[in-house]
């Protein structure tokens, strides 16, 4: 680990000002950052510790909820309002990592955790995300856990968060504080970037910008499901995951929100697929068609080809469960 300066921020404003300096990073739970620093994949010269800031707490926000950026994953999953009104979020959190990690991991840090691409974690192999222009080792290498949607020739990494997938289905927004003191709200839908030819850019945060809270809109009701397919029963990242909030009224799908994990550089959502399902009577044929539309543009790179049928099947099964329609 490269030696670094450590600074404990006393206020959000002080934190963002300090973090605007070059080679500076925030540290929250440290469960992702420290691992990457030990591997010298990340080597900041300065860490700004935000854990003493007053950014905890889960509060009502109109009809919705305002979740402080420092709320631990465990607390968020256990919150009674979250469990009652946004069960999808609670389930996604509990499907991630382990109890110990969830106790340390924060809401803000979870959103910004880095890809689990093997090569990104290995300084001895080329990776465009680490050093732009070096090439992508995964495209012709081991890519079993890589993306099938929204990839580019420069990077095929996935975003590994389960929580982010749930938040995407729930239409969450982020509250950001910039070093110049201004605050802005950004929909999670507009927060992450596809790799394109800038795979090192993963989101729209400006240098030094701090996530202060996540805002959930009013609950949508209906059936909520988070289904994570993984290599072992716990403590493994998603091969594919599906977050669904579905409400059926009078035999028709009245509301449907679907987000997908393990398949893209960001939690994936496809408005056209939701539009296709909207106002339709649920049926296996409808689900199969939705699944095939979802993956129309999907592309595998060898070892991850299986994710295409896996995603289709998992989506169809989740829709069947949510609408209580079986074949």
């Amino acid at each position: 680990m490269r030696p670094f300066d450590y600074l404990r921020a006393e206020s959000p404003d002080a934190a963002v000002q300090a973090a605007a300096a070059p080679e500076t990073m925030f540290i929250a739970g440290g469960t992702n950052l420290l691992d990457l620093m030990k591997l010298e994949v990340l080597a900041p010269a300065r860490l700004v510790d935000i854990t003493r800031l007053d950014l905890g707490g889960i509060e009502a926000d109109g009809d919705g909820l305002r979740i402080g950026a420092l709320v631990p994953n465990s607390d968020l999953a256990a919150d009674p309002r979250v469990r009652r009104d946004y069960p999808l979020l609670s389930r996604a959190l509990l499907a991630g990592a382990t109890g110990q990690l969830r106790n340390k991991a924060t809401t803000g840090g979870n959103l910004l955790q880095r890809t689990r691409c093997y090569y990104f974690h290995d300084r001895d192999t080329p990776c465009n995300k680490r050093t732009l222009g070096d090439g992508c080792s995964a495209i012709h290498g081991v890519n079993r856990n890589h993306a099938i949607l929204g990839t580019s020739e420069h990077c095929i990494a996935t975003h590994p968060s389960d929580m982010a997938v749930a938040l995407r289905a729930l239409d969450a927004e982020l509250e950001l504080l910039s070093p110049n003191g201004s605050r802005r709200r950004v929909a999670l839908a507009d927060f992450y970037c596809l790799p394109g030819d800038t795979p090192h850019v993963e989101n729209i945060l400006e240098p030094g910008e701090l996530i202060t809270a996540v805002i959930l809109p009013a609950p949508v009701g209906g059936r909520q499901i988070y289904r994570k397919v993984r290599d072992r029963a716990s403590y493994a990242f998603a091969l594919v995951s599906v977050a669904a909030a579905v409400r059926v009224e009078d035999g028709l799908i009245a509301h449907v929100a679907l987000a997908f994990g393990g398949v893209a550089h960001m939690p994936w959502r496809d408005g056209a697929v939701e539009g296709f399902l909207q106002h339709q009577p649920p049926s296996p044929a409808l689900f199969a068609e939705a699944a095939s539309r979802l993956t129309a543009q999907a592309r595998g790179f060898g070892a991850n080809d299986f994710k295409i049928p896996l995603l289709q099947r998992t989506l169809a099964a989740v829709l069947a469960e949510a609408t209580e329609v079986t074949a």
Partner: protein
Amino acid sequence: MKRHAKIDGPQTDRRLDGMAQGVLGQPLDRPDGPLKVTGRATYAAEVRLDRMVHGVLVRAPRVGTLNGFDTERVRGMAGVLAVLTEGLPRNSAQGAIAKSPPGNEGKAQYVGQPVALVVAETLEQATHAAWTLEVGIMPSIPVINPHAAPTEFPEKKQRDLGDLEAAMAEAAATLDETYHTPTLSSAPMEPHASIAEWDGERLTLHGAYQMLKFNRKQLAEALGIDPSAVRVLAPYVGGGFGSKLGISAEAVGAALAARMLGRPVSVVMHRRQVFEMTTRRSQTQQRIRLAADVDGHLLGIGHDALVSNLPGETFSEPVQQGTDFNYAAPNRKVVHEVARLNLIACGSVRAPGEAVGVTMFEVAMDEMAHRLNLDPVEFRLRNIPDHDPLDGKPFSSNMLAQALTEGAQRFGWRHQPPRSRREGEWWIGTGMSAAVRVNMLTESEARVTLTPEGRAKVETDMTDIGTGTYAILTQIAAEMLGLPVAQVETVLGDTDLPPASGSGGSFGAASSGSSVYLACLEIRSQIAARLGIAEEDLTLKDGHAIHANRTIPLSQILDAPITTEGHVEPGDSGKIARNATYGAHFAEVAVNDVTGETRVRRMLGTYACGRVLNVKTATSQCHGGLIWGIGMALTEELIHDPRDGHAVNRDLAEFHIPVNRDVPDLEVYLLPERDDWANPIQSKGIGELSICGAGASVINAIHAACGVRIRDLPATPDKVLAGLMQIES
């Protein structure tokens, strides 16, 4: 006084059965348990010495000729004391070999090879400097594909009996399938660690090793000094599974650096280095052929294996070791081929050979049972040989039939056609497999002291690698000397003590146990002599000698402590009779029809391992074996990059060992057995038996559940899904 026994034939006196203390076999808690769970047992990496500094190993980032290091820059970094680029071994020493591991001859022969050691005042400084050190390499093209590599056929590992081809041509039913197992890693919980300290010409190494008497010689030769100048201490070892049989680069590096700097040096491997710089289990390709008559009697068995290792390594995964004697068949052929690859060195990993060989063979047996339309348990029962199928010698004991029958009954085994049970999205099925594993005895010595106050001390350089050695040696001595276990102290893991077998090959308990038994037998003889009676007529219990209605406290018999030594050696016994252990595995799995995910719902194992020394630690070993089986079947694979062969997923987030939620209730039943041919305590190995074939029961259960036959391990969802989709179309 020393009691020596060379085991040339059956040991029929079964003296242990005549003892009175009643502690042997009991589920005694580990005497070292409280120390471990309260953090007071000091493992190598926790040793803190005055003026100690830290070394960190540097890996070769590619294969080629080593071409200089930018040591200047690194030497100038904060805290850096030394950069060592000479003298490190290419890879770990193999087990039970008294020779130094090979040097690197100026080459990086695999990605991940240790090529330098950076030493600094603090671990953090050394780590950063190690990351910074540039390794100059003139790259060459690595050979990583076993099919495009130079291969060898070790003479001793080929078998050709009768005419397999003719048997295949004439048989009523045949099978000819090819199976693959991936590179596996032992991934012990404790990383490899060495703390070296010199006192003049004498070296003390606090290490994490399994076989100290060999480790001492390996290290001495690597350093060019006499073994008598080396002391290795390893009182507590956090798992080894073969990866700590021989010394690795961290031991040599720590010793060299400590000598150079005149300060103690600690070198602890990073988890990622454990995957690369110690040994792996070779990937295997196994072609299995079976020929049977209409009644399901095997006529021919063929088992061809392609394994790999680095050039020059003598070890090759003995895939077909169990095939030599598992089932009867007059025509047998075994081809054993070793590809020389530029990949991480291969060595023994828990049950080398049978772990993967029996597992895939038992999958083939399941396939064959289906072709014959036979219950797989019955198919196996029909093919149990009544003597060694290779050379006709008798079995010392063959408990396979009992294990199969008892296991089937306890599990509630019912043979059903595939795809006959479904719960929602989940297919449910059960599978079984046999377990076989060679049993060995190796030379071992121990010293036992009994005091007039009725306290005993057992001393040997034997190791406890989490297996329970402290418990069982304590129990053997307590049983033989008639003492409550609290009165017996066992001291292990120090080469200043009598040299033991070490832990490996499941021979540790029986071998070191026999040496303790012999030393105690000698003490008993001396006590009997003082009483003027025969040893057989002496009863020792609770610190008293009992003879002819007289109960005499030890203090009235002994005026000073008695110290004796026991020494056991293998003799002709193993040559006259085939010595092995047997068992059976049963598993119930659920396979998700949508995703191909497999979850094990319950698992049961029955095992015969001779005399059980401690039912708790023996059962615990079997739990471990079953869990390894789950991992081998479903999740574990060290993935090599297709271009340079480096281990891609070399951490515990991505090398998937089973976690608690993957492991259901495990049931273990140990069959009563005494194997007189094995050794004077009639006990055999258990640690490895329970992994041999365990994974096959899971793979066979997947087939029974959903009809998908997995021939390439592990059965990850992608592979099962491909099979499900094939059945659907």
